[in-house]
C-alpha cells in the first residue's frame, strides 16, 4: 500500500522538480538582472526596479496564480500551450520580486563602491556586472540562491490549486481514494523533506565555507539561514556605514 502510494507520489514529484528547476533558473537570472539594474546609477531604472519589487512582494502568490489561471488559462489551452508554462511565468515574476530584493541587499552592502570604481575605469554596465559585481559577491550569492530553490520548491505546492499534477495534488487524490489522510500527508511531508533537507544542509555548508573569516552581521541577518524567506536585510551598510561600521579602534601597537 505504501509502495503504491509512493509510486503515485513519485510521479507527482517529477512534476514538482520540473517546476522547481525551470522556475529557479529563470528566477535567479531575472532577479540578478533586476538587482543589477537596481544598483546601477541610472535613477529611473533603479526606481522602476524597486517599484517592481515592492509591488510584486505585496501581491500574494496564490491569488495571482488563481486569477491568472481563471483569466488566461483557457486561452492558453486553446493555443495549445500547457498551463504548466503559465504557472511558471507567474511563479517567476512573483519570486523574482523577493529574490531581487535579497540580491540588491547583497550588492549594496558588498559592492558599494565598486560601481563607482568600475565606472571610473571606463567599464560599461554589462562589464561591471559580469566582471566586478557578480564575482565579488559570489560567496554571498550562492547560499542565498540555494535558499531560493528551497523556497520555490515549497511554493510549487500552490500549483496544486490550479490543477497542475504535482506531488501535493497527487497526494490529495490519494486521500480522496484511500480516506487515510494522516498517513498520506505524513508520506507527502516525507517526500518534501527528503528533497528539501539535503538542499538546506548544502546551503548551510556553502555558507560556512564561503564566508569563512568575514563576519558581516548585516549579511548574516539578512540572508544567512536556509529557508529564510523574508529577508531581514538589515541594511547595515546603507551605503555610508561600510567604513564606519564596527568600533573606533585606536588599536594597540
Amino acid at each position: 500500500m505504501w509502495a503504491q502510494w509512493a509510486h503515485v507520489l513519485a510521479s507527482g514529484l517529477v512534476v514538482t522538480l520540473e517546476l522547481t528547476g525551470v522556475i529557479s533558473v529563470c528566477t535567479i537570472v531575472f532577479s540578478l538582472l533586476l538587482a543589477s539594474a537596481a544598483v546601477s546609477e541610472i535613477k529611473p531604472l533603479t526606481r522602476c526596479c524597486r517599484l517592481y519589487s515592492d509591488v510584486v512582494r505585496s501581491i500574494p502568490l496564490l491569488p495571482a496564480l488563481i486569477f491568472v489561471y481563471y483569466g488566461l488559462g483557457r486561452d492558453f489551452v486553446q493555443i495549445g500551450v500547457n498551463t504548466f508554462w503559465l504557472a511558471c511565468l507567474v511563479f517567476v515574476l512573483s519570486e523574482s520580486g523577493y529574490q531581487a530584493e535579497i540580491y540588491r541587499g547583497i550588492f549594496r552592502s558588498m559592492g558599494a563602491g565598486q560601481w563607482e570604481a568600475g565606472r571610473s575605469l571606463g567599464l560599461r554596465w554589462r562589464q561591471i556586472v559580469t566582471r566586478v559585481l557578480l564575482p565579488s559577491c559570489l560567496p554571498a550569492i550562492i547560499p542565498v540562491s540555494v535558499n531560493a530553490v528551497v523556497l520555490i520548491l515549497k511554493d510549487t505546492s500552490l500549483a496544486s490549486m490550479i490543477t497542475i499534477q504535482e506531488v501535493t495534488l497527487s497526494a490529495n487524490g490519494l486521500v480522496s481514494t484511500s480516506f487515510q489522510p494522516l498517513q498520506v500527508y505524513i508520506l507527502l511531508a516525507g517526500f518534501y523533506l527528503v528533497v528539501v533537507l539535503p538542499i538546506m544542509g548544502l546551503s548551510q555548508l556553502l555558507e560556512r565555507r564561503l564566508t569563512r573569516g568575514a563576519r558581516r552581521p548585516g549579511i548574516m541577518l539578512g540572508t544567512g539561514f536556509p529557508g529564510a524567506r523574508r529577508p531581514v536585510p538589515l541594511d547595515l551598510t546603507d551605503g555610508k556605514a561600510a567604513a564606519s561600521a564596527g568600533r573606533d579602534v585606536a588599536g594597540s601597537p
Partner: protein
Amino acid sequence: MTVLTGSPAASASAASTAIIEVTGLSKNFGDTTVLSGVDFRVGEGEIVCIMGRSGSGKSTLLRCLNLLVEPTAGILRFRGVVTGSWPRRMNPIEAGRWRKQVCEHRRKIGMVFQHFELFPHLTAVQNVALGPRSVLGVPKQEAHARATDLLVRVGLEKFLNVRPGQLSGGQKQRVAIARALAMEPELLLLDEPTSALDPEMVSGVLDLLVELAAAGLTMVAVTHELGFAMQAAHRVVLIDDGQVIEETTPRQLLAAPVSQAARSFIRSLTAYHDLGDKTGHDVRSAGSGSGSSAGGAG
C-alpha cells in the same frame, strides 16, 4: 573595603597580603599557547601595570584573574585561599557548583574594558545600578542612590539618565569605571582602558584612575600609558610570547631595561614621546638609551 574613602596607599611589596595570585598559569586555545608558566601576584593596595606587544597574552592573563577565561593549567588563589586549580575535570554537579563559585569570585573583582561595554539599552544610572541590584540584591532605591553618588564622584552628574549612545568615549569609560566600583570590588582590573579613547579624553580618565589609586584601590591595568605607569604604578610586568620577561618598578624599566625584548618594547613605545619626569630630565637619556634622536625637552 570601600574604595573612595581615602585609605592610605599600601607599601609596594605586600608579600604576605597578596590579594590575588596565580602560579604556573598556562592557557592554550586549541593548538595555540597564549600563556605558559606565568607567576603573578598583586598585593593589597598595589598598582600593577602589565605591558607587552599585542598578542603577548596580557589580556588573557588579565581575564584569567577574574576567570572570564579559564586557565589550562595553574593555580589561582584569592587572599591565600585556593579558588581553583587546573587542569580539572568536573561532573555536572560539580560544574554547577563551580559556576556559582566563579560568580562569587567575580563579584569581588571589578573590570573595565577597552571598548567600555556599557549596556546600550540602559541609562548611565541603570548601568551602574545593575550589578548591585541583580547580583548583590540591593533594593532598587538604594542601588540607584549609590549609583547616582558614584556617577557624581566621577564627574557625570549631568548625564545620569542618558544612554551610552549619547556619551563620548571618555564619559562612557567613566560610567564603566563607576559600574565596576558599584560592586565595591577588592581588586580592579583594567584592560587597556584608554586605548579606544580620543587623545584629548585620555587624561580625564587617567586622572580618575590616579585618584582611585591614591585612595588605596588595588589595580591591575593592561595599558600602554607609560605616564600613568610612572605616576601611579608600584610595579610594571612585561609580558612577551606568553611569559613574563621582566618585572620591576616603572622607573627602572624605562631607565635600565634588562632584557632585549624589554628594550625594544620600550623603544617602540617611546619613539615619538617626550618623557620627562618632574624634574624635567628625560629618563631615557639617563640610561642605556641608544641614540634615538627624540631625546626630549622634558
